C-alpha cells in the first residue's frame, strides 16, 4: 500500500530523486558524532512551542484585566490545560538550554570557521531572538513575576546614553509597564518573533545546505581545514554514512533523550518555570521582595549589578555579545581540534565558568 503510494508520487513528481539526493544519497562524515543531532532536537522543540502556543491562544486573553484569570483558568479548569501550559513554559527554558549546548558544540569543534561564518552568525541571531521571544512571553501571564521582571528588564535600557529614558518608554508603550506593554509584547511574542525565528531557521538550514556539513575534528589525522578556495565549493563527504537511515536514527535517539528529560521536568518538577510570585496577579503598586529574571538572564542581571554604572555594565555585555557574534571573523586560524588550540580552550572554559559563577551569584544575591 505505502509502496504503491510512493510509486504513484514518484512517477508524477519524482520523489525518488529527492530521496536519493537529500536522504539516502546525502552523505555525512564517517566520524560524525551525537552533537550534530542537536539541531534536529531544536527543530522539534520549536515546532512544539508553536503548537502549544497556538493551543494556549485558544483560552488565553491578552488583556491586562483578564490575562491572569485566563491563565489560571487554563491551569485549573480546562482539561489538560496545565499540561499544555507547562509544556510551553518548560519548553521555552529547554529551548534556551539546548541552544546553548548546540552553540557550545559548534564552538568547541570549530565548526564556525570559514566557510561557515554565516551559519554561526545566523545561529547567534537565533539565540538572541529566542531570548527575545522568552522575555516577551514572560509578561503574558500578567503575574507579579511577569510584571516586575519586565519592569526590571525594560529598565536596563535606560542606561543607554541620550535616548535611554525615551527607549524605555518606547519599549513599554508608556512611562511604566502597563496594559500597553502587554499589547506590544504579546504581538511580538505570538506574531512577529515566531515568523522572524522561522525565517532565520530557514536561512540557517539553507546555509548548511550550501556549505555542506563540517567533519568533526576528532579521530582523524589533519584537523586543520584551511579555507583557500578560489571559487564556491560544496563540501561533500564521499564514502560517508547516509543521512537516511543512519543519521536519522541518531536524530531520533537524541530527540527521545530530549523528551525523556523534558517530560521528567514537566511531570516531576512542574514548579521549575515559576516562583511564588507567578501565582499572584500583577499589582503595579506592590513590588515583591526578590524579583529575579529567568536563569539564562541571571548572568546579565548580575553583571549590571556589579558595575558601578549601568552604562558600563551594559557596554561590557554589548561588547561580549558582539565579540561572540563576530567570533568567526576574529578567530581565523584553520585548526579545529580543541586540544590543539590551548589558548582558545582555556578561554572557552574560563568563559563558561565565569558565566556560571555570575549566574549563581545572581541567583544567591
Amino acid at each position, binding site marked *: 500500500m505505502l509502496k504503491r503510494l510512493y510509486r504513484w508520487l514518484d512517477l508524477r513528481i519524482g520523489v525518488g530523486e529527492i530521496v536519493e539526493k537529500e536522504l539516502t544519497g546525502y552523505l555525512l562524515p564517517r566520524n560524525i558524532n551525537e552533537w550534530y543531532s542537536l539541531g534536529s532536537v531544536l527543530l522539534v522543540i520549536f515546532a512544539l512551542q508553536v503548537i502549544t502556543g497556538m493551543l494556549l491562544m485558544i483560552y488565553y486573553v491578552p488583556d491586562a484585566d483578564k490575562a491572569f484569570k485566563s491563565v489560571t483558568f487554563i491551569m485549573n479548569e480546562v482539561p*489538560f490545560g496545565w499540561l499544555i501550559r507547562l509544556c510551553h513554559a518548560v519548553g521555552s527554558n529547554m529551548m534556551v538550554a539546548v541552544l546553548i549546548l548546540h552553540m557550545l558544540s559548534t564552538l568547541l569543534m570549530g565548526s564556525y570557521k570559514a566557510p561557515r561564518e554565516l551559519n554561526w552568525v545566523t545561529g547567534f541571531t537565533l539565540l538572541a531572538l529566542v531570548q527575545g521571544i522568552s522575555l516577551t512571553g514572560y509578561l503574558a501571564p500578567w503575574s507579579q513575576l511577569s510584571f516586575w521582571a519586565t519592569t526590571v528588564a525594560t529598565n536596563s535600557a535606560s542606561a543607554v546614553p541620550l535616548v535611554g529614558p525615551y527607549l524605555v518608554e518606547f519599549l513599554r508603550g508608556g512611562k511604566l509597564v502597563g496594559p500597553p506593554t502587554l499589547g506590544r509584547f504579546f504581538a511580538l511574542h505570538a506574531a512577529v518573533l515566531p515568523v522572524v525565528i522561522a525565517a532565520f531557521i530557514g536561512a540557517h538550514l539553507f546555509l548548511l545546505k550550501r556549505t555542506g556539513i563540517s567533519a568533526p575534528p576528532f579521530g582523524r589525522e589533519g584537523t586543520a581545514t584551511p579555507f583557500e578556495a578560489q571559487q564556491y565549493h560544496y563540501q561533500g563527504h564521499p564514502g560517508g554514512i547516509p543521512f537516511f537511515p543512519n543519521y536519522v536514527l541518531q536524530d531520533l535517539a537524541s530527540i527521545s533523550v530530549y523528551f525523556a528529560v523534558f517530560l521528567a521536568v514537566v511531570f516531576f518538577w512542574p514548579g521549575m518555570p515559576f516562583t511564588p510570585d507567578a501565582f499572584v496577579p500583577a499589582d503595579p503598586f506592590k513590588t515583591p521582595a526578590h524579583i529575579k529574571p529567568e536563569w539564562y538572564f541571571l548572568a546579565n542581571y548580575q553583571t549590571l549589578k556589579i558595575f558601578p554604572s549601568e552604562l558600563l555594565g551594559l557596554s561590557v555585555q554589548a561588547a561580549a555579545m558582539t565579540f561572540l557574534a563576530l567570533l568567526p571573523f576574529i578567530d581565523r586560524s584553520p585548526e579545529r581540534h580543541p586540544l590543539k588550540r590551548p589558548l582558545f580552550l582555556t578561554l572557552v572554559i574560563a568563559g563558561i565558568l565565569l558565566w556560571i559563577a555570575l549566574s549563581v551569584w545572581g541567583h544567591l544575591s
Partner: protein
Amino acid sequence: MENEGRRKFLGVCVAGATACAAVAAGYPVFRYLAPKSGQGGGAKLVIPAGELKEGDAKFFEFAGSSAVLIKTKSGELVALSAVCTHLGCIVQWVKEKQQFLCPCHGGQFSTDGTVLGGPPPRPLAKIPLTVTEGNITIG
C-alpha cells in the same frame, strides 16, 4: 529469513510505540479542545412573575441555548425554545400579531409553538414551567 522476521518484529514494535505516543499526545489535546458538555444543563431558572406583562415575551438563556417566555393576552404562561426548527435561527416576537417570526426564512409560529407558515418542519419545543407564589420556575 531470520533477519526478515526480526525486521518485521521491530517494525511492529516501532509502529506500536508510535501509535501509543500518538494517543498519549492526542487525547489531552482533544480533551483540551473539546467544548464543555452539559453547561448549565438541568439547572432550573426562576423568573419573578411580575416581570412580564400580558402580550409580552421575554428571551433568556436556558440550558446553554436560547428560550422565550410569553404571557398571552389571556394571561396564560408558555415557555418555548427560541431556536427555529428550520435552520436554527432565533425567532422574534411580533407583539402586534401575537406570534413568532423567524427572520431567516420567514417561518411563523403561534404562541404555543405550532407552525403557522414558512419552511419550519416542526413546532418550537415546549419547556415545562411551574408557577408558585409569584415566581415562575422554568425547567
